[in-house]
């Protein structure tokens, strides 16, 4: 497994991502500066980490989406390479057009940092094989703009194609319509690209991997990636 973690000015969870890839997937991630034009040779997973790239000024992720390295990320995705965008990374993927829709301000207009329950919508992708379908996992969110929205046709297509990766759920497994952290449409917490090789998600699995710190439900995502890339 050869992951590359992209560092934009203002990224701030890149070390959290590196630690998760190291501890859970046994990888030695390379940190790649946004101004580069190429990914390190052999890169098989690109991670866009959390943070406030360019201060999230203008719109979250908007300026980072136009960075040099994004051309290489686009090409990598087009070849079927795996891309994981977490939080700001998800916002960047949407702004770059690698995923549809957009993340706008939380419905309550406040930043929110708390643990949420996520329902795993499918367990047959490179990102989720270590989970079971409909598993409820505990993962924290930490964002001010995680309210996923898109036009009706886009949402309908995402739903129809099974491209919702995770939804904010209640304890009984139902979608959290009222009390979700951010008001996202249909409780959407993460989505896949058409070929299921690009995943964008608001919650932070990389912060829930060590028993010393808290729950470890985030490990499954990195274990899945390790498995998928070993098999490949």
């Amino acid at each position: 497994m050869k992951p590359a973690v992209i560092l934009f000015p203002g990224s701030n969870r890149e070390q959290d991502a590196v630690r998760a890839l190291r501890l859970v997937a046994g990888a030695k991630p390379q940190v790649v500066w946004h101004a580069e034009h190429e990914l390190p040779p052999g890169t098989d997973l690109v991670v866009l980490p959390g943070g406030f790239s360019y201060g999230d000024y203008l719109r979250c992720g908007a300026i980072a989406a136009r960075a040099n390295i994004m051309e290489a990320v686009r090409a990598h995705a087009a070849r079927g390479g795996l891309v994981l965008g977490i939080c700001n990374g998800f916002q960047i993927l949407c702004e770059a057009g690698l995923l549809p829709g957009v993340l706008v301000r939380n419905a309550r207009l406040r930043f929110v940092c708390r643990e949420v329950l996520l329902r795993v919508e499918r367990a047959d992708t490179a990102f989720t094989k270590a989970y079971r379908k409909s598993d409820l996992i505990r993962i924290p969110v930490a964002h001010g703009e995680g309210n996923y929205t898109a036009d009706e046709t886009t949402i309908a297509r995402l739903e129809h194609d099974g491209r919702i990766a995770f939804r904010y759920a209640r304890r009984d497994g139902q979608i959290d319509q009222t009390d979700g952290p951010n008001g996202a449409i249909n409780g959407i917490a993460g989505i896949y690209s058409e070929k299921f090789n690009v995943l964008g998600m608001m919650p932070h699995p990389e912060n829930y991997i060590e028993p010393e710190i808290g729950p470890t439900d985030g490990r499954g995502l990195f274990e899945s990636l390790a498995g998928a890339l070993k098999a490949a």
Partner: protein
Amino acid sequence: MTTPLNSDRTAVNSIPNTSRITPELVAEHGLKPEEYEHFVKLIGREPSITELGIVSAMWNEHCSYKSSKVWLRTLPTKSPRVIQGPGENAGVVDIGNGLAVVFKMESHNHPSFIEPYQGAGTGVGGILRDVFTMGARPIAALNFLRFGDCHNVKTRRLLAGVVAGIGGYGNSFGVPTVGGSVGFHKRYNGNILVNAMAVGLARADEIFYAAATGVGRAIVYLGSKTGRDGIHGATMASAEFGADAEEKRPTVQVGDPFAEKLLLEACLEIMKAGCVVAIQDMGAAGLTSSAVEMGAKGGLGVELNLDAVPCRETGMTAYEMMLSESQERMLMVIADGKEDEAEAIFRKWGLDFAIVGRTTDTLRFVVKHNGVVEADLPIKELGDQAPEYRRPYEEPLPRPVVAPEDVRTNASVADALERLIASPDLCSKRWVWEQYDHLIGGNTVQRPGGDAAVVRIEDGPKALALTTDVTPRYCEADPFEGGKQAVAEAWRNLTAVGATPIAVTDNLNFGNPEKPEIMGQFVACVKGIGAACEALDFPVVSGNVSLYNETNGKGILPTPAIGGVGLIEDLHKSMTLAFKAAGEPVLLVGK
């Protein structure tokens, strides 16, 4: 730039002023007549307007601690662990394994009242800079907040703005905000308290200090550009600089957490590359206090060439540049021959970098602009010989102790409990700390909501415990006991999570020290804090004093906030406050 060294050691005889230095002008700069006379005697002539601005910045309460210094000196500041006590940007304490914890607390009360979001945000920015200037990467932030009566609409707006501002800055910068305190009382109606604390981690043998060394070394300006932010002497300024002065001089700065994050990374990189001899952040009184402190502490002169200062606005005068409080800026002395390497690192991060001066052997602080000497002052006197007061104070009379049997109530225990839980001071503060990213970094072992926050150090098993405490109404009732109690509470909160308390920082928020009863509160609180710290072997390694906090002429409750830091050797042995199982005995310790 090739400014020649200031080789002639005699001061200039005079620097022409366009407008006269009148007593009114002196007063508008916050200098008492006797302070001004003292200054004139020191320099042997009438000061220039720029010099007046410089001395007013250096000798104001905030920079010089002139009312509090004599009392602060009574606090215990040493222990075998203490590497650096008060006097630097932050305190430094050894935590073993070659590591040190670097921390400090600072107030941003007034700006937060005027513009809560930006005021609180720049408060966080300032304290983070204090910590990373010393070579430490910030690993946690806390905040201590007091607001007025919570039924006021104004209070709600202030609370919402301050909390959003703290989150807006800390979350974007990328430090977990793991704890703090929020309280309400009508005595804060017109003067809220916003105290921010930052905690960083550094290698114990790679701490950076403000004292400059070496003659002829480059003094470098780093970070964001200089604008007319927060310049003091407003009334004078409007006379001197035209009618649009109000528009030109916002008294509140806008923070740029993004620039600060870049500044952090660039500073740590440049330090690692061995480029830095001395470093000081430009906080209040920006360029003035940073340059003077670097020189005064290092026993060197400083010559600045303001033509090289990166400015955001055109036509800035020397006076304005020296007093600007623009945020996200630093001053550094660069190691010989390392200028290019340092510059390359800063450019990579997209930050300004300019050589704005040199160290000299003259012990004078010389400021040049457009080829003209605008200031030429003795640097030691400016830095170290600020006036110091032993202000008159009244010994506070502790309020009589209230006996439980004298308190009449017909509330049932259940009703009383309900009222307690519902009171704004005691209710859950989740609404507040959910707006702070308290998990970033992946090291937050205990989150807000417990007795103290616990943050893992690197990959463990060590961890730090962090808390901020004081109960202002105790300090009002009996300042000495209240001061003691604040320290004891911080100590208990740390021990309750299994930590050994190692040191404290403080933020002493009081009213007008020129009133003997307020000064009396201050003195007694400091004595109480000192007594408790002494008894507990809990040294004070950094802190901040905020005076003149008043609402309609009446002082706030005396509020000496204590920030406590404890060390946990093995985080697996730390404790949380939740009951773990049914049927277990509950013990009460103490009487």
